[in-house]
């Protein structure tokens, strides 16, 4: 499956004096190519490419929260920040509203596979709390009305 992104992988390998260092970048690329989660096959392919043991690739992947190891997710992944600043500014209400609007509980994926709703620890956007991240974008200073508008924007 990494055939399609050969050039991107080559560019990544050039960044480091040892192959193993590219494991995080390659896992990120593989997750993106598979539509949001890491498959065993892709991780085994990375192990061969980087001359690592599959268990080492697995250990790296499982260490970081943003990799979704063998857990398929929706087309868009929503992360709702729940750390202190967002909590002080009402992140509990934000999560409740999202759960109602999407008809899922946190950690679940909508039946049309459009959204996966997850919680996140501090995302570093505390001056504009409460906030959430959808895919690579930050959405800040949220309220229920704003959230409804944001969700409508996703086809």
């Amino acid at each position: 499956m990494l055939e399609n992104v050969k050039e991107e992988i080559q560019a990544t390998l050039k960044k480091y004096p040892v192959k193993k260092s590219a494991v995080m970048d390659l896992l990120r690329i593989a997750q993106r190519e598979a539509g949001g989660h890491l498959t065993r096959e892709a991780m085994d392919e990375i192990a061969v490419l980087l001359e690592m043991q599959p268990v080492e690739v697995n250990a790296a992947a499982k260490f970081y929260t943003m990799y979704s190891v063998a857990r398929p997710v929706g087309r868009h992944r929503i992360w709702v920040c729940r750390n202190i600043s967002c909590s002080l500014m009402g992140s509990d209400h934000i999560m409740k509203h999202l759960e109602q609007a999407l008809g899922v509980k946190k950690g679940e994926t909508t039946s049309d596979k459009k959204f996966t709703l997850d919680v996140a620890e501090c995302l570093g956007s505390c001056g504009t709390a409460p906030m959430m991240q959808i895919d690579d974008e930050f959405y800040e200073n949220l309220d229920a009305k704003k959230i409804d508008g944001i969700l409508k924007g996703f086809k």
Partner: protein
Amino acid sequence: MEKILLKNLNNPDAHKIDVYIKGGGYKAFEAALKLQPDNIIQMVKDSGLRGRGGAGFSTGLKWSFIPKDPTIKKYLCCNADEGEPDTFKDRGIMDWDPHLLIEGMLISSYAFGASASYVYIRGEFAFGAKRVQAAINEAYAKRFLGKNILGTGFNHDMYIHCGFGAYICGEETALLESIEGLRAQPRKKPPFPALAGLYGKPTVINNVETLACIPAIIERGPKWFSSIGPEKSPGPKIFGVSGHVKKPGLYELPMGTTLRDLIYNHCGGMLTAKPLKAVIPGGVSAPMFTAKDLDTPLDFDSVAAKGSMLGSGAVIVMDESTCIVKMAHIINRFFSHESCGKCTPCRDGSPWVTNILSRLEHGDGRPGDVELLESLCTNIFGRTFCPLADGAVMALRGAMKNFREEFLYHEKHKRCMV
């Protein structure tokens, strides 16, 4: 005060190299290339600059620990992991002024002889990572990076390494492990990274804000820098204010600005008529203050003298509607989630503490829970490899010291006081 670090905050074009150069950018690097590397290290020492990541160690001194042997490869790693909850200052520089960071990194690398550098950016900062990568590409095109930079014979390559959601990567040796492709668990020190760091080579790890101070120190001189703020903790500092204030956000002010001045003048005061109950002065690991501490100057030594720490300069303001037990629960839940699993007191102790706080918070507290928390703090603090668990304990102890009655109320009455 004239802004040095945040002068381009929200300036829509400042991230482009032509705009940066037009505003005087890369002049400090060009000037630095004409100086002896040792003189630059001396200037940074004389400026009194202390690391803005939280530890407050002398930056010039850190650079001076790197061996002088030119045949040994050396690395600079910029710590842009910005994981301490409620910290969002480095993002302000990476998103809006990435060339300021790159210029600081180049001067630093020239000073101690690093031929390559990595910017370790947390995975959530996709926008910032794109901005910094675009800026690196521009800098290569203008020959500020690459081989024989500006005809001086100095070579330097710069890369981005993206994290993917792990707080521990902000710990400098865990950061190195992460770049090397391993699970990001802290290393034993010594050897310190200055002797055996990335790939076993001498390495300096500096925070984004620290590096962003460097161009101004070269251009304006160490005396100018050391004249700002307190003598032992000088310079401009970015404070990231969040929580119950009218105008949360980033504020660049002299070190030593008081909490009161920051909250009531710069941030416009409390969000509503409710008075201030507690304030965390430096990211969630820092023990919380109350209204009686508002006249504390925000610099490394003054905050430490009051029993807390300046840390990353993330100031979290809480009004009287805030339940401190809930806050303590959120903080400890965070640390127990982020424990890397290496040391037992942290791996097993932090979730234990979090469970107790969770039951207190949700009305299931048991008699003796508060005492049990105190005993757990004693058994965790100072018994781990890195300061992650210490941060969790410091935060909890700070909360229990100032608001013990609230914890006891939760334990006895199974509900919240506020």
